[in-house]
């Protein structure tokens, strides 16, 4: 995929009293939004599964009242060799993290007081023409098609129970009960220390339903890692071992993401949290840190990839949270637990 930027985005920061504090280039990772857009239309059969090389462009959506250069959001548009381009629109809230980082710097620079309310607007200006670069690597995108095989979504739904909140915009994900049991067992065995594994499985396509869905068939325990109560390090050897295990299975499975544990009971011990506080703590469930997301971006960037977190708390049985790319943002999401083995048909 080649994402081009005919415009450069920036954040205009305002203090509590509306004072313009300055304009800062909005540097963020646009890939998540681009991946979401591409896969969204591939799921619906409106973009070819081998369309991973189609050129995409990021353009501003102008604010209705103020007009250019003020933005109300941005659009990712993907060209198709034959057919109309497809596009998704994204709101200015996607720049919230950028604005928060700028606000932190402004507090250090005394442009903002600690705790002071701030607001921001997004602007965009045409990018300066780039001079053609001499030399460098000549690279072409040779990414494979989305590896989806044909199957009936209804067949899977009939043998699965929902877990969490199912959003119709999410690609359905089915996880075998055995995968969850293995993850739970490993989490308990490593009590107090983060552990994890790589998720593998199959992507299925139900053309009649205009949907692609995932079946997580196995988890490969992450080896050659180092873990503590707040960190799990995946090394190059971890990925190599997982790949070797995947190849040995010879079942045509692909990497679909990873799982790791959050030893929340251990975190709570360190902070001497009361049971009541633990039950409402945001870390106890559906918490996915910036580090956790960084693993997704570095190892599992496709929009069909997911992450599972095993939440080991002191006040309830072990629970599982799933996270995935929804509308260009990593968000908690629901999934289905397969009660028995289901493959295809």
């Amino acid at each position, binding site marked *: 995929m080649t994402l081009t930027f005919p415009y450069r985005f920036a954040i205009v920061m305002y203090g509590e009293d509306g004072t313009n504090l300055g304009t800062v280039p909005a540097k963020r990772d646009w890939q998540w939004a681009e991946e979401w857009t591409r896969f969204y239309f591939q799921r619906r059969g409106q973009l070819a599964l081998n369309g991973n090389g189609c050129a995409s462009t990021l353009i501003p959506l102008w604010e209705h009242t103020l007009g250019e250069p003020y933005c109300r959001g941005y659009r990712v548009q993907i060209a198709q060799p034959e057919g109309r381009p497809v596009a998704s629109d994204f709101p200015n809230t996607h720049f919230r993290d950028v604005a928060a980082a700028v606000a932190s710097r402004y507090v250090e620079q005394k442009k903002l007081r600690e705790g002071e309310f701030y607001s921001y607007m997004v602007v965009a200006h045409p990018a300066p023409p780039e001079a053609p670069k001499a030399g460098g*690597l000549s690279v072409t995108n040779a*990414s494979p098609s989305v590896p989806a095989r044909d199957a009936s979504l209804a067949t899977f739904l009939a043998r699965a129970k929902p877990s969490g909140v199912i959003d119709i915009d999410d690609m359905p994900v089915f996880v075998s009960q055995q995968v969850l049991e293995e993850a739970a067992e490993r989490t308990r065995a490593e009590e107090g220390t*983060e552990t994890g594994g790589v998720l593998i499985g199959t992507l299925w396509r139900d053309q009649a339903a205009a949907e692609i869905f995932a079946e997580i068939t196995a988890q490969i325990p992450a080896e050659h890692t180092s873990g503590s109560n707040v960190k799990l390090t*995946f090394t190059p050897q971890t990925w*190599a071992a997982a790949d070797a295990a995947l190849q040995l299975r010879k079942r045509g499975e692909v990497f679909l993401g990873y799982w790791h544990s959050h030893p929340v009971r251990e975190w709570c011990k360190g902070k001497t949290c009361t049971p009541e506080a633990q039950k409402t703590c945001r870390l106890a469930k559906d918490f996915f*840190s910036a580090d*956790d997301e960084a693993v997704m971006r570095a190892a599992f960037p496709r929009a069909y990839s997911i992450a599972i977190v095993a939440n080991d708390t002191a006040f309830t049985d072990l629970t599982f949270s799933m996270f995935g790319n929804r509308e260009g943002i990593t968000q908690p999401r629901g999934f289905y637990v397969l009660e028995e083995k289901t493959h295809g048909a």
Partner: protein
Amino acid sequence: MGNPETLLEIPLEISDVSGQKVFSVANAPTGNTVGELVHEMLGKMNLPRNDASGAPLTYQARLEREGRHLNASERIGDALERGDKLTLQPNIDAGMSY
């Protein structure tokens, strides 16, 4: 196939951990190091260079043909052959720092 010692550039195939991002490089300079190749390919492949805190990420290139991770200092012309497949594998943390 020409004498590897006289080839100035060789074609390679580079993928990410998932295997779903694959890029063909037509002209990897044999005089460059693996580290230089990795550095440039991270940008081409849109792979993150830094972790959540801004610290640089380390990627190792795994050579499929030999089943080993290459050292960043190895010369492309010494370690690689035409058409070799590499996987860029990061050293990366899940979790959070207090």
